[in-house]
């Protein structure tokens, strides 16, 4: 009898203890989840190639859900306005820093363009050739760019376009700078390096970063070079993946993928360090301080993208845990650096950062 009483007291004590531990765990989970940033949908409609207006009020984007054209989404009231005529959907849109102009990359589909009377028709262009176009959203004017262009970016000041092409007569690769319509063309570099990608150009100090393919055929990686003015290009990083290369605004750091791992390079010290994050994807936005960056990464085995905030000086990385599964295509940071916008499956979401 005594033994039974003792046992029941012991049992009761254990039960109470377990209840307290259980309640603690539940409370911890609730609190933890409460503090997790929530991925929230901004709009229900299809949004391709978005950018945030400089006044932070609108998302400019392209959509082909109905009439394929540029649209403007007012973030405060979700009002959508069509702001261009109809186009065939481009493969890529490179927004000017002012957001008033956009470069469209279009694969020439001879059959469709010529049968249906596309605005992208260019007589004599080969089927499947890559073409570039400038679209001015204020003037609603579409202008063809040089057919030889292989890659193109906006200069840091947004006043010029910087483009690369291959001169077969000279057997040289060339990077030029010009006004957005192609006029006032000036040569920045001309050499035998197999230039594939223009990464960044700062007109103030004439600093240029570009990628050239590594020796090898059909399976290319890029070697990254830096050049200032008319100097000789310096090799700064070897054999990076062609996608996911982002330089900071001051062009002192660059993030890229090397052998399936995220790396960060200090371009002034010519030093590259592994961030020890395995990934086959890199979408990066640099913060205004030019030191911190937010990246979206993905390992093949995971079903959602992972965000990290990384300090390029200390290499300290913090995972930004969030609720929701995402497969990010575009990454945009608001100017106050509090909101991260992104598209996943062509739908626009936002993540409020702490």
């Amino acid at each position: 009898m005594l033994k039974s009483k003792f046992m029941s007291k012991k049992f009761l004590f254990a039960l109470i203890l377990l209840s307290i531990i259980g309640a603690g765990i539940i409370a911890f989970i609730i609190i933890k989840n409460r503090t997790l940033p929530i991925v929230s949908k901004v709009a229900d409609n299809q949004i391709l190639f978005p950018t945030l207006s400089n006044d932070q009020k609108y998302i400019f984007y392209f959509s082909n859900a109905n009439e394929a054209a540029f649209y403007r989404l007012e973030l405060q009231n979700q009002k959508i306005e069509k702001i261009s005529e109809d186009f065939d959907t481009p493969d890529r849109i490179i927004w000017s820093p002012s957001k008033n102009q956009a470069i469209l990359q279009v694969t020439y589909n001879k059959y469709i363009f010529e049968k249906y009377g596309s605005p992208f028709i260019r007589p004599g262009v080969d089927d499947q050739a890559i073409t570039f176009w400038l679209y001015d959203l204020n003037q609603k004017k579409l202008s063809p760019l040089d057919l030889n262009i292989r890659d193109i970016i906006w200069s840091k000041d947004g006043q010029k376009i910087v483009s690369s092409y291959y001169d077969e007569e000279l057997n040289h690769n060339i990077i030029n700078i010009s006004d957005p319509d192609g006029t006032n063309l000036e040569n920045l570099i001309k050499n035998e390096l197999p230039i594939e990608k223009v990464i960044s150009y700062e007109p103030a100090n004439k600093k240029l970063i570009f990628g050239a393919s590594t020796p090898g055929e059909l399976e290319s990686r890029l070697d990254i070079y830096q050049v200032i003015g008319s100097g000789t290009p310096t090799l700064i990083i070897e054999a990076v993946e062609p996608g996911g290369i982002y330089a900071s605004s001051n062009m002192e750091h660059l993030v890229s993928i090397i052998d399936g791992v995220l790396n960060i390079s200090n371009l002034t010290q010519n030093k590259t360090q592994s961030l020890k994050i395995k990934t086959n994807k890199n979408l990066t936005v640099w913060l205004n301080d030019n030191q911190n960056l937010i990246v979206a990464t993905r390992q093949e085995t995971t079903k959602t993208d992972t965000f990290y905030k990384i300090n390029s000086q200390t290499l300290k990385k913090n995972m930004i845990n969030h609720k929701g599964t995402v497969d990010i295509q575009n990454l945009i940071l608001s100017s106050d650096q509090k909101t991260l916008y992104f598209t996943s499956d062509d739908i626009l979401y936002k993540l409020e950062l702490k």
Partner: protein
Amino acid sequence: MLILFAFTAYFAGFHRGESGTGLTGGGGTGANCNILFPAGAGSDQEIAQAINQWIAQHGPNSDLKGKGVLFVQSGRAGGVNPALIAAIARKESTFGTQGIAAEGTFNPFGRKAIASQPHKVIRGVMWYKFSSWDEAILEEGPYLKRVYLDEGRTTLGKLFEKYAPPSENDTPTYIKEVASWINEMTALAGGALGQGCTIQYAQNAEGWIWPVEGTGPFESGFFCFQRSEPSPHLHNGIDIKAPNGTPVKATNGGTVIKVAQTGHNGGNGTFLTIDHGDGMQSIYLHLVVNSIQVKVGDIVSGGETVAQVDSTGYSGGPHLHFVIKKNDKYVDPLNYLPFKKGISDNPIRNNLCDEI
């Protein structure tokens, strides 16, 4: 019961035979396809998944992504292979992203209209206007049945004689593209879509031929093939030394799928790729700028001159870098090309990789 079974089997066999008599044209090239719904081959879900995967690969910016189930429903309703419907959507509008589909018609199939039908006039032509992508997809299967299959056009050739007539299109190329796309979806479906299309090319009687005869002794780097992969510096084919301007011949019959007339192209220089069907492709690198005499979609016969030897891209001298791929993997071309004594039988051939 047995009699009924035998009759059904005979009738089904007859239909398969009829649908297999595809158009033959374009230098002896043709495609034999089952364009009818592949009854009993696999589940609707498996087929829908394959179509979804294919659209996502080739139309990443399309609003038709994820609508595989509707393609299957449409195909089932019209008794048409849903892969054919998806292939037409790619050919006519890149899955609704281009052409008149991009102008508010929700018409990814390039269907014209008459005045009594819902329509939109674009640049003087009256195009069918659907109320949504879903409606357009669901309507296409029954439409193909009503207007083409019921008229006896149960082969790709007969269908496209009317759907994409020679007066408007290069019909053999159209057929070849659609047939190869049906095959891509069929492969993704892993048997759920039946057997797909058999595409015939004008093959060489003796099979593969050397694209250039080449010069120079074996020891000086007539060819090399390096098996060590993966490697960014993989030499994934053979180098055949030949003077500038030497004609390059198609190694076998096929369809030209890629042409780069100019540019460095990652070291490849001017190059072209020919698809020989059955997962086989040949690639020809370092050619003379603008020397490629064929364009994408052209059907070439084995032995036909397609370009000229040069040294464009990463190259130390005139030669042809020749690659054969099988099911997207590099294979040793010497295993396909006619035997050459001293080369094909050289035991150290895979270790030689001279700096050409």
